[in-house]
C-alpha cells in the first residue's frame, strides 16, 4: 500500500492519492473479473465452433486421402505399435499415423502416408497413396507449402507434375530427372525452373518410405476395417 501511495504522489496530473487511487484489491478484482468474463466468452465461442472446425479438418483429410487413393470410399487411421500396424480411432497424437483406404465393401485398397520435409522456402507437407501389392505410388497431394508462387508452387498446380505420381515405382528409390527425360518407372519429370522443389518432394517420399515400407504388413494381412470407424466416418461426414 505504501508503495502505491508513493507512486501516486509522483503522478504528473498532480491529483492526490486519496481521490484517484483505488486500493490494490480493486485493481486485482477488476482484472480478475475481466479475465473471467473473457474466459467465459472464449470457452463459449470454442464450444460453438468446435464441431464445425473438427468436421472441416476431418473432411479435408478424407478428401486428401480419397484423392491420393483412387477408388477408396472408407478410411481409418493406422498406427505402428509393438511391431504391428494396428487400426485405431483414438485422437491421440503421440504416434505417427498413416491411413488405410478401403472400398465400400471393406476391402483394403492402399495406404495414404503423410510425409514432410524442407522445401525451397519452408516445410512441405504431403500425403501420398501407396499400394503395397504393386509396390507403387498411386497419387500425391501437397497439403501445405510455401513454395515460390509461379515456380515452386507448380508442385501442386502443375497437373503434369502431379501426374508423375499416379503410377510410380518406389524401387530402388524415386529419382527426379530433367523434364522429358523420364525413362524408368521409378523416375519423375522435374519441373523446369523449380528443380529444388521437385527434388524436395522426391526426397520427402523417399525418406518417408524408408520409415514406413519395411513396417507395413505383407499384402493381404492389412488391418481389418473397424466397424466403429464406419460410424465415425459417417459422423464426420455430417459436416459436409
Amino acid at each position, binding site marked *: 500500500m505504501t508503495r502505491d501511495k508513493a507512486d501516486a504522489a509522483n503522478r504528473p496530473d498532480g491529483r492526490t492519492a486519496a481521490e484517484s487511487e483505488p486500493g490494490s484489491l480493486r*485493481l486485482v478484482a*477488476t*482484472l480478475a473479473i475481466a*479475465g473471467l468474463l473473457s474466459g467465459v*466468452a472464449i470457452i463459449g465461442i470454442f464450444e460453438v*465452433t468446435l464441431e464445425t472446425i473438427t468436421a*472441416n479438418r476431418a473432411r479435408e483429410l478424407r478428401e486428401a486421402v480419397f484423392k491420393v487413393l483412387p477408388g477408396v470410399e472408407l478410411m481409418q487411421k493406422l498406427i505402428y505399435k509393438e511391431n504391428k500396424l494396428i487400426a485405431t480411432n483414438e485422437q491421440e497424437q503421440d504416434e505417427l499415423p498413416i491411413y488405410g483406404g478401403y472400398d465400400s465393401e471393406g476391402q483394403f485398397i492402399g495406404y495414404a502416408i503423410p510425409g514432410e520435409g524442407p522445401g525451397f522456402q519452408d516445410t512441405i507437407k504431403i500425403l501420398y497413396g501407396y499400394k503395397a501389392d504393386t509396390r507403387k505410388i498411386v497419387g500425391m497431394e501437397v497439403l501445405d507449402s510455401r513454395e*515460390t508462387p509461379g*515456380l515452386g508452387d507448380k508442385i501442386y498446380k502443375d497437373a503434369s507434375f502431379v501426374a508423375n505420381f499416379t503410377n510410380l515405382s518406389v524401387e530402388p528409390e524415386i529419382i527426379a530427372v530433367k523434364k522429358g527425360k523420364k525413362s524408368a518407372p521409378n523416375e519423375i519429370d522435374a519441373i523446369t525452373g523449380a528443380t529444388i522443389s521437385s527434388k524436395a518432394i522426391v526426397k520427402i517420399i523417399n525418406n518417408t518410405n524408408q520409415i514406413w515400407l519395411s513396417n507395413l504388413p505383407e499384402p493381404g494381412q492389412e488391418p481389418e476395417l473397424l466397424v466403429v470407424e464406419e460410424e465415425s466416418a459417417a459422423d464426420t461426414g455430417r459436416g459436409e
Partner: protein
Amino acid sequence: MAKDQNQNYEEFVKGLWRDNPVFVQVLGMCPMLAVTNSAINALTMGLATFFVLVGSSFLVSSLKQFIPKQVRISSFIIIIATFVTVIDYTLLALMPKVHKELGAFIPLIVANCMILGRQEAFASRNTVKLAVMDAMGMASGFMIALFTLGAIREILGDGALFGVKLFGDNFEPWIIMILPPGGFLTLGLILLCFNWFTVRKQQFLEKVAAAERSGA
C-alpha cells in the same frame, strides 16, 4: 442535435482520409504488409480488424468508469484479445481456407498498435456513441488501405481480382508482388503518392491564400 450529428459524422470521416491509420499515421504495418497478397485476404483481415476494433471500442467506452487507470492497458488488452479469439475461431469454422492463408496474423491483431491506440487515445475518454463512430471510421480507413494494397498486388501478381482472371491465360504474373517485397514496394509507392498529393494540396491552398491577400 444537429451539432451532435455533425460531430458523429466528423469522427467517422476523419479515419477514412485525413487521419487514415495506414497512409497518414502509418500504424498496423504488420498485417498491412503480411496478408495483402490478395484482395480476399486483405478484405477478410480488414473485416476481422473492423469487428475487433468496433467491439473493443464499444466495450472500453461503456466500461471506462469501472476500469481503474492503473490497470487500463491490461484491461484493454483482455478485451481486445477476447474479440480476437472470437473472430479467430469464427473464421476457422466458417472460412478454413482463408484462415489458413492468414495464419498467425489473425491472433496477431491483438498486437495491432492501431487498436490499442484507439482505446487509449479515444474510446477511454469519449462517449460510447463517439467511440463507436471513431472506431468505425478508423477500421474502415484501415480496411480501405488493406484492400487497395491487396487489390493492386493481386492484379499485378496474379492477373486477377478476387480470384477472377482479368487478362486471360497469357498474363505474365509479377511474382514479386505476391511476395513480401511487393508489399513494401507497393506500400512505399502509395505513401509516396499520398504525401505528394498532400504537399501539392498544401501548396495550392497557400497559393490561393496568397492570391486572395494580394487581391484584397
